[in-house]
């Protein structure tokens, strides 16, 4: 369980969480033991405020503006509503062609640049140009974002997110 908590926490820090995670010990199964994972997608905007001392702070708010160039946070909240752990969890989020992964996304984020066939961190991926030559993939090339979680304990929830910019 220690290992699980560490992984979840790492994913959260990397993914700009707003919902604190609550890792609970699995409760003893009463009836048939089965996990039940639910997913909730959301989109948030970054709201910046500057205080009297000139310090800028940011928070995630309900988005109101969707113009080209706008930065948004695409989030995915998960929760295991069942009564046993869900293991080998892989959540995949295809990117709509109207958005691109923001350049300041976590470098450790697992992504695909080939339509979801292969996944890896962006720095390890290549794309082929028109001439067949390959070049290092950029944020603009990302087609899918993926998170892997070894296990989600019963009652455990969290949120992962990635920043995008409307093209």
């Amino acid at each position, binding site marked *: 369980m220690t290992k699980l908590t560490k992984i979840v926490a790492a994913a959260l820090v990397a993914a*700009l969480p707003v919902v604190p995670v609550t890792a609970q010990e699995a409760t003893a199964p009463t009836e048939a033991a089965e996990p039940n994972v639910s*997913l*909730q997608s959301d*989109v948030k905007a970054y709201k910046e405020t500057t205080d009297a001392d000139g310090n800028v702070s940011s928070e995630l708010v309900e988005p109101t503006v*969707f113009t080209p160039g706008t930065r948004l946070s695409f989030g995915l909240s998960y929760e295991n509503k069942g009564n046993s752990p*869900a293991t080998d969890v*892989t959540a995949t*989020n295809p990117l709509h062609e109207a958005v691109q992964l923001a350049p*300041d996304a976590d470098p450790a984020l697992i992504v695909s640049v080939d339509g979801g066939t292969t996944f890896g961190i962006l720095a390890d991926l290549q794309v082929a140009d028109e001439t067949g030559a390959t070049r290092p993939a950029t944020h603009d090339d990302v087609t899918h974002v993926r998170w892997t979680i070894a296990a989600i304990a019963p009652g455990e929830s969290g949120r992962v997110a990635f920043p995008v910019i409307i093209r």
Partner: protein
Amino acid sequence: MNTKVLNRSLFATLTAAALTTGSPALADGISAGTLIENTATATYDDGTGVQTVDSNTVVVRVDELLAVTVTSLDPGPISAGPGEAVLTFEIINQGNGPEAFELTANPAVAGNDFDTTIESIAVDTNGNGTFDPGVDVILTRPETTDVLQADESLTVFVIVTVPAGASDTDESDVELTASAVTGTGAPGTTFAGAGADGGDAIVGTGGAEDSAIGSLIVGITDVELTKSAAVIDPFGGTSVVPGSVVTFTISAAIVGSGSVDNLTVTDAIPDDTTYVPGTLALNGAPLTDATDTDVGEASDATGISVDLGTVAGGTTQAITFDVTID
């Protein structure tokens, strides 16, 4: 969770976001009204096998960004005399949705030597880049373009009158402003529901309007003709007697900062004289008498004619020809 790490992560995000905000609006941004749908899918092992679960689908509609640029297409100040002059501008819809723009021409720009009078604003209907009266449609007030698609450009002409009192080399600027019909204002101003497909319209970084200056410079040019004669008589003197040869010189001085077009100098052969064939010359260079490819022609019956074409101010052209006294 380590709060310190989280804060630092947020700060890094902020810095990047601030940079993004400062960048100019993307002219080739995704079209207003586009629906961006986002759904995630997860797989997991429940102990009996792999289960798949989808998230809900979040849908957002791309707003219409209101942005426009105006540029002068004139290569420099337009040379103009008193009367009509035409300034050429290009309007580009830099937003991501269809938008019309109201045009305003201001003749009273600070620093002007004189102000022109705005006569009309016309659209380059036939797309040839040149104002064609009767062809290019003149806009009626309030002068408003047709709806321009995202990234579409439009050439417009501002037709002005230069007042009679303008002096040579005086300069004047005319400012053309294009404003989004949906509205203008501080960047980020939202016009709810006024965008493409019922989305919002948002004022871009340029305030949804732009201006450009077109310039005029007055070039008043006059032609001053001076005719002189030199006589050589058959005896080596300068008496005007039958058989004397008279060399006429017509000096055409072009005065002013501009230039004159289609300048043709003609002169008749005086009565009781006869043109000496082959004596017509321009600035010392012989011209043939025949009506041919060179600029001069001459005959006893029709006199001389030299087509100087376009001549710049500040130059003098000398035409010479000989006659004999009958």
